[in-house]
């Protein structure tokens, strides 16, 4: 039975047609690849790589492993029930001395300080004093320099901080921590800040998203009903803010919001301040500058076009005949709008809100300039962790959480609306 080989389609030169086809397509594919290669490489280098590095930094923790290799190897077999034995102290002392010589001791202190308060100075002092000690027993020597070396908790911290990969940064970015036994518990109340920051970031972003939707939807509807030349003119006005840098706009807001600035003066002169005072809603002059209200107003202003434009572009494609059909079938204008028009704008609403929400999560400069000092958002904390504390692990962990939140939002959007329906214009 030689049927199967005979039924294969062959090209004129006898090669199987499939192979021939693949061969002829491959050249086209290569040419296409060559065309997109520059952009692909650029995206890989400037976008994908940094994200991957950030994700790695969120769990990568080589400091103690590098500076205390012998100690961490010995601690690996330690059960954590009683103080470690003398060899551990010996190894630690030796490696601390070496680190001191190479001026690396501060690195150890900094890393331990993330988990135990005041460890930075304690390690520095220990390292300096240890230079004078020439021989053991090291357990005694260390505990006399600082009793902290006699605590089991100190060594438990050294033990888990000295593995190359650690969930510590991610956990602490969610106000969690791992006990010596490996169980995950809530961080002590006085060290809990991040959940609050994440919640605050989400709250402000939600607020801004809802406000842009409430303000933008009617405007988008209005513009979509206008004849083209008038609509284009209005669109130019909506796009106008894009022609100015974000920083300039934010600075402008901070000037407007100043105490005794334009807005406060206007409220005063127009009598609104007086009215609010009379109603008991306000005491004295309103303080707008450096408040959450200022952040939300400024962010809403900046984000408005991002929410409005996708909605507008969807509305523009909805034929007026749908509303007419609904009316002719007996629906009142309001009913027709809610049942027939609104559902068709949902892809635009979802796209606009998703865009604004995700962009709002990452706002940094606006809350920093016009927002309250204790009201900064997650991006502000990433900045502080990186630039003031040099804590790249924490910065990366916060970034990773932001990144995950974005992915989750996309996933939810895709399940609810379908990413293929995303219309940005």
């Amino acid at each position: 039975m030689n049927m199967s080989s005979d039924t294969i389609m062959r090209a004129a030169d006898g090669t199987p047609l499939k192979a021939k086809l693949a061969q002829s397509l491959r050249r086209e594919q290569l040419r296409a690849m060559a065309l997109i290669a520059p952009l692909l490489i650029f995206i890989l280098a400037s976008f994908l790589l940094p994200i991957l590095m950030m994700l790695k930094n969120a769990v990568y923790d080589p400091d103690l492993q590098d500076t205390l290799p012998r100690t961490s190897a010995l601690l690996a077999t330690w059960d954590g029930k009683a103080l470690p034995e003398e060899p551990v102290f010996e190894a630690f002392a030796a490696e601390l001395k070496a680190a001191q010589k190479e001026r690396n001791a501060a690195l150890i202190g900094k890393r331990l300080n993330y988990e135990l308060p005041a460890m930075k100075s304690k390690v520095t002092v220990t390292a300096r004093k240890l230079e004078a000690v020439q021989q053991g027993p090291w357990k005694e020597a260390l505990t006399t320099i600082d009793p902290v070396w006699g605590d089991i908790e100190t060594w438990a911290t050294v033990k888990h901080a000295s593995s190359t990969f650690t969930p510590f940064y991610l956990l602490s970015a969610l106000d969690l921590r791992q006990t010596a036994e490996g169980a995950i518990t809530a961080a002590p109340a006085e060290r809990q800040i991040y959940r609050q920051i994440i919640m605050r970031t989400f709250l402000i972003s939600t607020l801004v998203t809802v406000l842009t939707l409430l303000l933008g939807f009617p405007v988008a509807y209005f513009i979509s009903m206008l004849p083209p030349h008038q609509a284009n003119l209005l669109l130019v006005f909506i796009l106008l803010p894009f022609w100015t840098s974000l920083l300039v706009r934010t600075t402008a807001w901070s000037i407007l919001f100043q105490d005794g600035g334009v807005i406060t003066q206007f409220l005063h002169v127009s009598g609104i301040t007086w009215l609010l005072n009379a109603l008991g809603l306000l005491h004295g002059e309103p303080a707008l500058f450096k408040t959450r209200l200022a952040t939300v107003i400024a962010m809403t202003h900046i984000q408005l076009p991002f929410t409005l434009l996708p909605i507008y572009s969807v509305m523009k494609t909805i034929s007026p005949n749908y509303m007419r059909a609904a009316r002719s079938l007996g629906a009142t204008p309001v009913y027709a709008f809610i049942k027939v028009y609104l559902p068709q704008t949902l892809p635009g609403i979802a796209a606009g809100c998703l865009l604004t929400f995700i962009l709002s999560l990452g706002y940094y400069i606006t809350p920093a300039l016009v927002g309250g000092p204790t009201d900064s958002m997650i991006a502000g904390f990433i900045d502080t962790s990186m630039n003031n504390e040099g804590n790249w692990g924490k910065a990366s962990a916060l970034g990773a959480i932001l990144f995950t939140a974005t992915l989750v939002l996309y996933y939810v959007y895709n399940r609810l609306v379908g990413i293929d329906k995303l219309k940005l214009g």
Partner: protein
Amino acid sequence: MDAIAARKLHEVPGRAGISLASESPSVREKVMADQTHLVKFEHVQKSYDGVSLVVKDLNLDIAKGEFLTMLGPSGSGKTTTLMMLAGFEPATHGEIWLAGKPINNVPPHKRGIGMVFQNYALFPHMTVAENLAFPLTVRNLGKADIEAKVRRALDMVQLQGFDGRRPGQLSGGQQQRVAVARALVFEPELVLMDEPLGALDKQLREQMQFEIKHLHERLGVTVVYVTHDQTEALTMSDRVAVFDKGIIQQLSTAQELYEKPVTAFVAQFIGENNRFHGVIASSKGGQCEVALQGGEKIKAVNVLGGAVGSKTCLSIRPERVDINPAASAENVLPAVVKELVFLGDHMRVRLSVAGNSEFVVKVHKQPQGGLAQGQKIKIGWHAEDCRALDDN
């Protein structure tokens, strides 16, 4: 089509006369003859820009149960007229009546007029069943009632089993049927259709013409239909209103429209016609004699009663012209054969007659010896087949 389902759909008290009308054409004609007007346009004018009139002094009566088609070239005001009737555009002047009541100030959703749009306007986010249920839900019908009516409507357009699909998952013809069913499901007395078949291919269009016509006959519903397509208008309608430049040029049955056009535009727009320009030389008893530029005299029907000396345009249908005419023909002219086109059942012969080299004759039976290009022949026609119309 499911006749029983269709009839059930429209079993409404007080509509017995119309249901009866669907039984036999003669009864329906009688109903129409009763002059029970459902719709009446009275001196209606419409301007969008305040500069030009898109609809100029429209007067139109539409009888109950009638199938009336508005036919005309693009931009002649057909859609505008329909939109005024449906309530989406206000009339600039004049009054529109529906079932004896003026409706100028009645909003569209209270007019109870079904409408089929050119691109169907099926709600894309709803299933077929939800689309059909929409007008019923709006009217607060019970759930069981709605379900039964939707099922009957689906039976009526032969779309059983399609209720769960979305419009995007239907073919053009199926969408069209859903649109028709949706316009009929709430049992309106009047249904408007604006080029409902414009987006379909020729074969499907012909099939749907047939189905819409049958639905109309079975339900007895009044239909106002808009189309570009003259064949569609002629085959489907009880009466056709030919629109041009915002004016109804002629309103009559298809046959009359074809055989007795009253303006040169209608003669030209409906079917083929041969034209001569001339001046009325004499007029007597509804007939006249027209002098062409070359001096030939032609006897014709003086349709507009034009005075002697006034300019006119003569119109003769190609199938009314005989080659080698009998002695009874009042008009006989010499002609030269320019072109012969064989079309199976008949032959189109292009001739040069009295300075008109685009004169066409349809020949069903070739004369003895056949015809050849360049041949000199005689042609003739009866005075009653030649109509003297306005000249412009």
